[in-house]
């Protein structure tokens, strides 16, 4: 019994509800929401330590032992992601304080963000596949509300597309759950894993797992990413950043869980397919990033490339690759959030969205420009920033398994990432300035603080990679050896 | 014997529902459709009652009442929609 595990989900929910009552006191809303996220981050750190000493933790809700009740499972993988998500959200909130404006703040902006995080954290922590569906829905509805918040013409149009595609994906998820229950007659992920292992993964079970693959691919933006570029460029900047950082990651997490824990026994089919999809995603993402003239389009396609890159690791499947994926996931959440915040701020400062129409920003905002440079280098994987170690480990896995095509695609993509982001840097930050000192809008102090914090995370994660290596390795070990997870759930003598 | 009769009744009710469905599809006017839908609801009430007998359970009796309530509310909503174009008024017309 470890009630602490539920806190990352339940605390944001309860705070969100409280904030509904505090609708008119915006200051209080800000403070409380920030405190909540910091609290969740602290809880996750405590959890990480606990997992190190006591192994995988689980919390059976209402005390019903698995596989009958619902439970939260905290293993290093999940908690690392929870930690990152909380930190990213906390920093994004700081950005929001000075930019989002009272119009949105009064319309329950903070409750929605907290609920989004609650859904995300719940998805990471849950050990029950149907509960995963429910957590997804919490997250999705909050994201629906956030993407439509503002009610602009184009925003509503793209929001509608986003909502429709996600709803269809949700019902497909339910379809997959129906098939799953029809075959395995259980919902607990560990129990599913056990049952699948019992009979060996028969083709029909693989078929069921493929339905899940499609569903989660849709959520993760793996190959089926068509909804992503449009919808990620319409909401307010901070929402874009949160989406880019969190939403696809949940899908990626689900893919990892599905194909490492529940259906890992038919890699010739599933992992090959994931590899192909990841490769195509990278190619499509690269083409999109090259084609964009709009800073936001370039940024969103970079999200797509990131998704493809992380899932290469799943296709490769070695322990190193998994560790790399964990590192890269954490890095990607932080770096993408920063990228979107910066891009959004650029649009805010210049009033332009086309790369060519901005120029010389670094003269007016030197620090801002260098922060962009840092995040660019991090995304390319230039050491010693955060993207480096993940890239190295995934590459190492690819070499070990002889997946040279994946290796080439993955590493080649970083050149394209570099090219696309460098284009923004050279055109928009370098060059003659287009803003005179008088017209210069100041960057809000809060925004600057959040940039700095993110940059600090990026550098810290790169230089201090060793600091979390023990957790990452533990996460990767559990991913590669699902029996550890299953034993902790089903065979523990508690 | 009883079961046969009940099954037959169910069959008849289903036919009635199917016919009403035809009216829903065909229309031609909105009230026609509303009435047909109401009829379907009412027929369902009967059908549920029969099913409860067939299944020897009292679990569905709530459904009967609920269906009654809903078909009433639904019909009111429809008639207001047809008559005034709005369902819930901000302020009463009179």
């Amino acid at each position, binding site marked *: 019994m470890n009630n602490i595990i539920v806190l990352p989900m339940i605390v944001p929910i309860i705070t969100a509800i409280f904030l509904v009552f505090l609708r008119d006191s915006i200051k209080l809303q800000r403070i409380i929401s920030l405190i909540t996220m910091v609290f969740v981050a602290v809880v996750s750190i405590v959890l990480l330590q606990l997992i190190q000493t006591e192994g995988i933790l689980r919390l059976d*809700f209402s005390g019903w032992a698995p596989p009958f009740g*619902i439970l939260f499972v905290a293993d290093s993988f999940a908690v690392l992601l929870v930690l990152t998500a909380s930190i990213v959200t906390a920093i994004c909130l700081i950005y929001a304080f000075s930019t989002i404006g009272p119009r949105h703040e009064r319309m329950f902006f903070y409750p929605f963000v907290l609920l989004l995080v*609650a859904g995300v954290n719940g998805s990471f922590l849950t050990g029950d596949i*149907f509960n995963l569906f*429910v957590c997804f829905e*919490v997250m999705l*509805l909050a994201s629906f509300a956030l993407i439509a*918040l503002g009610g*602009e*013409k*184009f*925003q509503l149009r793209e929001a509608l597309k986003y909502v429709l*595609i996600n709803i*269809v994906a949700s019902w497909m998820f339910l379809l997959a759950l129906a*098939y799953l*229950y029809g*075959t395995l*007659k*259980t*919902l607990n992920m560990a129990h599913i894993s056990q049952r699948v292992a019992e009979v060996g993964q028969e*083709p029909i079970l693989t078929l*069921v797992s493929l339905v899940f693959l*499609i569903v989660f691919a849709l959520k993760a933006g793996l190959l089926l990413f*068509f909804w992503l570029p449009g919808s990620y460029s*319409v909401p307010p900047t901070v929402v874009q950043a949160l989406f880019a950082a969190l939403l696809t990651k949940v899908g990626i997490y689900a893919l990892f869980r599905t194909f490492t824990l529940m259906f890992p026994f038919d890699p010739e089919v599933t992992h090959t397919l994931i590899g192909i999809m990841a490769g195509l995603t990278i190619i*499509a993402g690269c*083409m*999109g990033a090259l*084609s964009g003239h709009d800073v936001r389009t370039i940024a969103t396609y970079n999200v797509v490339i990131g998704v493809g890159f992380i899932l290469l690791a799943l296709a490769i499947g070695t322990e190193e690759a998994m560790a790399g994926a964990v590192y890269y996931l954490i890095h990607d959440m932080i770096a993408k959030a920063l990228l979107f915040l910066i891009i959004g701020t650029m*649009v805010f400062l210049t*009033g*332009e*969205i086309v790369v060519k129409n901005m120029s010389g920003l670094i003269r007016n905002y030197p620090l801002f420009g260098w922060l962009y440079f840092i995040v660019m280098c991090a995304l390319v994987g230039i050491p*010693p920033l955060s993207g480096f*170690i993940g*890239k190295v480990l995934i590459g*190492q896995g*690819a*070499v070990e398994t002889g997946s040279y095509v994946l290796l080439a695609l993955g590493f*080649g993509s*970083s*050149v394209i990432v570099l*090219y696309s982001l*460098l284009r923004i840097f050279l055109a928009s930050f370098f060059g003659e300035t287009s803003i005179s000192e008088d017209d210069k809008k100041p960057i809000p102090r809060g925004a600057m603080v959040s940039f700095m914090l993110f940059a600090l995370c990026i550098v810290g994660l790169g230089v201090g990679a060793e600091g979390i*290596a023990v957790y990452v390795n533990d996460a990767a070990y559990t991913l590669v050896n699902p029996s550890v997870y299953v034993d902790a759930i089903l065979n523990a003598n508690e | 014997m009883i079961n046969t009769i009940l099954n037959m009744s169910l*069959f008849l*009710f*289903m*036919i009635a*529902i199917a016919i009403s469905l035809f009216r*829903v*599809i065909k*229309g031609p006017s909105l009230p026609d459709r*509303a009435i047909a839908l109401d009829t379907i609801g009412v027929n*369902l009430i009967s059908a549920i009652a029969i099913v409860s007998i067939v299944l020897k359970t009292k*679990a569905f009796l709530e*459904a009967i009442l609920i*269906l009654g309530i809903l078909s009433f509310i*639904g019909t009111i909503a429809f008639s207001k929609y047809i008559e005034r174009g*709005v369902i819930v008024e901000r302020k009463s017309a009179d």
Partner: protein
Amino acid sequence: MIVAFSIMLPFIAAALIPFIYRRFKNIHLGWFVLVVPAVLFTLLASYIPRIANGETFVKTYEWIPTFGINITTYLDGLSMIFSLLITGVGSLVILYSIFYLSTKESLHHFYCYLLLFMGAMLGVVLSDNLMVLYVFWELTSVSSFLLIAFWHHRKASRAGARKAMIITVSGGVAMLAGFLMLYVASGTFSIREIIANLEVVQASALFVPAMLLVLLGAFTKSAQFPFHIWLPDAMEAPTPVSAYLHSATMVKAGIYLVARTTPIFGGHEVWFWTVSGVGILTLFWGSFNAVKQFDLKALLAYSTISQLGLIMSLFGLGSAALHLGYASDTVIYTQATFAALFHLINHSTFKGALFMMVGIVDHEVGTRDIRRLGGLMALMPFTFTIAVIGSFSMAGLPPFNGFLSKEMFFAATVNIMQLNIFSLDNFGLIFPVVAWIASIFTFVYCAIIVMRTFFGKIQPDRLEKPPHEAPIGMLISPYILITFVVGIFIFPNVLGHYILQPAMASIYPMFPSSEELTPHIAAWHGYINTELWMTFGVIVFGILLYRTLKKWRPMYQIFPQKYTFNAIYERIIGSGESYSSRITNRYMNGHLSYYFIYIYVFFIAVLAGYALYADVLSWDPSKDSAIEPYELILVFVMVFAAGAILFAKQRITVVLLNGVLGYSVAFFFVLFRAPDLALTQLVVESITTALFLLAFKYLPKIQPEKVSNSIKITKAMISIAVGATVTLIGLAVMNYDKFEPISAYFEDAYNLAGGKNIVNTILGDFRAFDTMLEVVVLFIAGLGVYTLIKLKAKKGDTDVESK
């Protein structure tokens, strides 16, 4: 400790620069910065005697030990050469820059990048761990990018910076892949350990791919053919930068890498041919193209490319000795490597001086175009001296150090012909011939530098400023360098013994005696040998070609502009962009129905495809429960209601039909013994229908779909296929009953949870968490609807965010 300090110091200094800059506005920032390389040079130089004795210094600091990535500093003969070059040339360049750059420039940026670069470069040459080497390697690319783009308001600077960054980082990424292969093959990132376990690595299938990838990194960095195109464009950087990065240090990182990995890969045929072949090709191509340049800096850039090719090819030739193994008669082939190292140093001295000379000319005259220059000898005698000595050395004329290394180069190409390995007996002749031709061109462009700039008639009206001699400060550095040019010629063996010999030991670790590997360098061997004949030939033909330059120069026009490597690079980038935008815009057309088509087609392809491939479909209706006639009717009612939706003309009909569907579903729930579901479904369906009516009260009639029949048919086909897939999988799933459902447990609900309604106890107790979250979902939806309705965009307030 000192080694790690050497790497750290520039970074620390770089971090301090903004503070110093703010504090001491009156003093040129360069003076503070100069301290760093000067101190480091002295420190490192103090190690020379011990290094010459064969000592090496290793120290490990843990960074990411979990993944074998540790900062291991390693100072041996090879790294000594490079670190001395970096700090030595660095000091001179900074000294020079103090006079070159005025305080109006943003000096704090400049020196910050420069120090960053210096630290990174020291890191590259002093790291033993491949990953750490890579870290610094990329840092050099980044800092080089920043330095090239220093005057970023110029378009050419930005373009040059981008090209350099893209090419070197691409190469770096390839190199990283190569390193990873080495790691997988050997199990360690440490170069020393890899060399210690050579057998394992060489037996690995990854050996050759790893080698090629590492070479790709080295070639891009060292501007080898055909990656040389970034170097001329990089000349947009301030001249001190060009002198430092793009001739003396950074471009030599690739050379360093080749030298460093020679013990691993050398001796393999692929290595031999790639390194020496690409090197010799670059040598030729660079010198050939240098002749046609009009910009002095571009000319020097091509000459750098050419010289780098020379050094590279020498390393390639020298690696043959590793294949042959140690024997008294094979030692002669190691002389190529010796020559490479020797020329490496020589090149840094004369090329550094030449760049500074060009900088002075540019600074004092305002142009670098040789068509506008001329006759400066009288006005700038000191600068002229630098130019003459530097050019003569580069052309390989005595009495300068270039002569010695050039002679050794010729000797090496001649020697290699005697070998009968690697098909050298057939193709060996290529080396001396190409080397000789390239040297003639080298001679020609050296002549161009000197003659066109300093001889002939002065054209004052075509110059930006009235020419005069440079300030003394700018002359100090180049004079120190030309002192070395001459000094090395006179005392080559001091250098040979203290500096080159330990480096040879690093490159040939398995050869017992480094003493033997160090030939005695002499300007005059006492007799006229082949090399000397070749030099004579170079001079004769060089003068001839220079004289007739006007006649054959138009030959360069023959090569169409379209097929230059630059044009190809531009075209790859351009067509990459245009093709990808064409493709992306075609499928990302913003139409939701297309996106759904992609999704569904993928759905069908994967699921139906796999189902057919693995033959999992099965259908066994024997276990099914009976079908009552009224159930059949209900099914038909549902099918018709759903089907009618497709053809309905009015929205209201569609809404009502959906209601019928919902009610039918509810009745199925009744039939299949799910009272709670039936209740809920009935209420929810009614409310949903009401919501539909509320939401769509304003909508017009459904417009008939204005799409062609073929699209309709396509959509219908997709729909049917999706339906069929769902059905077939469903049937197969129904046929699978290996497990008992877990729900038997819940049947004891009354005792466990105190409720008789099992479904409700599941919802309220066993799976109460779902219910709790479901309530949250509902709440979010309610709140979301509220905000959607209440928060409207202000009229006419369409800001850019929503474009």
